[in-house]
Each structure stands twice: as C-alpha cells, then as structure tokens.
C-alpha cells in the first residue's frame, strides 16, 4: 500500500519499492552555500597540510564507532559497583575515562533516577548530546517538537514514548544550555540480582539514558 507523505506528491503510476514505499529521489540539487563552504575549507586544510584525508576519515570512523552500548556499560558498572556509582555521580567524565572510553573534552553529568524521581534530557537551544560517549543522537532529539515540548509538557511527551509516570513521581527535565552534557542513570530493573555487568548492560537502551524510556525488563 502506498503511504501518505505530505511533503511531496505521488502519482499513481510512480513506481514503489518492494516494501511499498516510494523511492527516495536522487540528491541532484546544487550544493548549498554551507555545503560548498565545508568542502572548500576541508580541501584547503588538506592542501595546506594542516590535516590529511586519512585523518578526517579516521575521525569520522571514531565517531561512528561510538554507540549507546558504551553508555550502557557505564550504567551497568554503576549498578554493580557502589563505589563506581559514587564516582560517576561526582564526576561522570572521570568515571567514563576510568573505564577506558576516549570521550575527548566531554564534560558529563550523570543524573540518577530513583523510585520517586525520573530525569529526562533535552537541549532546547540546539542539539547538545553526549556524543563522545553515546554516539550521534536520534533524529527526534534534534526536532523542534521534542525540544520545545519536553520542557513544557514532559509527562505528555514521555507518554507518547510509552512511558506514563505517576503524578507522585517527580520529573526533572535537564536543559543542556552550556558546557555540560547529561546521561540518565536509570533504576536497576528488579529481578536482576546476581546478573553480570555484561548481562545488565544488555538491558540499557539509548532512550533509558536520555530519559525517554526505561531499561528493558529482564527476560
């Protein structure tokens, strides 16, 4: 079945992919001003020997290699090691480096969920996110809808993510407005006594660390 897409028109005779979706148009449009500037500066930096194409590719690979799995390991360590949890809440950057993560200049604060409080992270001004630990943010995190709504009606937004919290749970929204980045330390799921750090890490989702979700329940 063809789907309704409000951003462009489809004609009945337009071919659809085997999954029933329209094919994505080729990006044949001219480069934008900013795309042209980025390419020009990058090529100049290479021409002048400031950096190399290999260094740029390596940096892109390093960023792509970062993923929520890194943050999940930090969370699982905090669940199993009380002293590490203390260090994480005191200085999350130092605690992440202690585990061997190369997080660069990231200044990280961990905010801890409890039975009475739930934390959720946003950047209303742009798209600040702890990329050096969790990798690139999901597209919705950067949308105007999420950024403007989660500070005003967090309960409604969380409910749309499938997370309905009782009125007695205090919701704490954190707007990353300056130099700090944030990670949520979720509550360890019940029924995981004796689990290894690796097994626990498998329960920690990206959204649980943004605060728009909870860890998975133990199977």
């Amino acid at each position, binding site marked *: 079945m063809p789907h309704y897409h409000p951003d462009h028109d489809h004609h009945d005779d337009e071919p659809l992919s085997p999954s029933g979706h329209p094919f994505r148009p080729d990006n044949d449009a001219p480069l934008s001003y900013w795309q042209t500037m980025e390419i020009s500066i990058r090529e100049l930096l290479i021409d002048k020997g400031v950096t190399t194409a290999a260094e740029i590719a390596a940096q892109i690979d390093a960023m792509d290699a970062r993923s929520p799995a890194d943050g999940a390991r930090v969370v699982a360590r905090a669940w199993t090691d009380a002293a590490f949890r203390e260090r994480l809440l005191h200085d999350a950057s130092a605690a992440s480096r202690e585990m061997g993560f190369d997080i660069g200049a990231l200044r990280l604060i961990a905010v801890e969920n409890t039975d009475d409080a739930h934390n959720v992270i946003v950047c209303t*001004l742009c798209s600040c996110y702890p990329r050096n630990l969790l990798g690139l943010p999901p597209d919705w995190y950067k949308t105007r809808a999420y950024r403007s709504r989660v500070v*005003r009606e967090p309960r409604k937004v969380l409910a749309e993510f499938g997370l309905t919290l009782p009125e007695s749970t205090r*919701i704490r929204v954190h707007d990353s407005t300056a130099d700090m980045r944030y990670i949520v330390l979720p509550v360890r799921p019940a029924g995981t006594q004796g689990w290894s750090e690796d097994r626990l890490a498998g329960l920690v989702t990206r959204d649980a660390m943004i605060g728009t979700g909870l860890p998975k329940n133990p199977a």
Partner: protein
Amino acid sequence: MPDRVRVRMMMPPGHVRTPAYLRGKTGIIERSLGAFANPEQLAYRQKSAPRPLYRVRFTMAEIWGPAAENPDDTLDAEIFAHWLEPLDDSHAPLPSRP
C-alpha cells in the same frame, strides 16, 4: 541553604545561551560548575575570561504558571553568573569563584 536567584530579564542580540523561556524566572542554584569562557564572546572570536557557570533549578509552576502539567516537576539549566541576580532574601553575593 541554596541561593535563590532570578534570571535577568534581558533580551540582548547575538549568540546567547540563556533560553528566553527562563528569563525573569526565579530558581535555586543546584550546583556550581566552575568557570567557563563566555559563549556570547566566543561566538564572535573574542577573548573571554572564564566566568562562573551554575546549574539552576526551577519549578514548572514558576516557569509555566497555571499551565504547568505538574507544578512540582522541575527544570534544571546551566546559566552564567552574569545572567543571575541574587534575590533580596539571600544577601550574600554570588561567589566569583565557585
């Protein structure tokens, strides 16, 4: 006792990292973060002496009034010292070095 502060009601042009929805609102300092270069100067390649940065906690009732979903829910944001004015009931000036 935490310091009660009000975000200055200014609307300067340029690259400002104090969200408009918090200007004029009253909160408490949740923690001091140390001193950081001022993005309002860095954005224009000006030199910037480090300035104290704070995490300030506001209630949703303070920010949104009767429209708040739950008045006791909170919002924390990082605000530079030059955007904060101590309230009358906390006479101590903001520390220049947190």
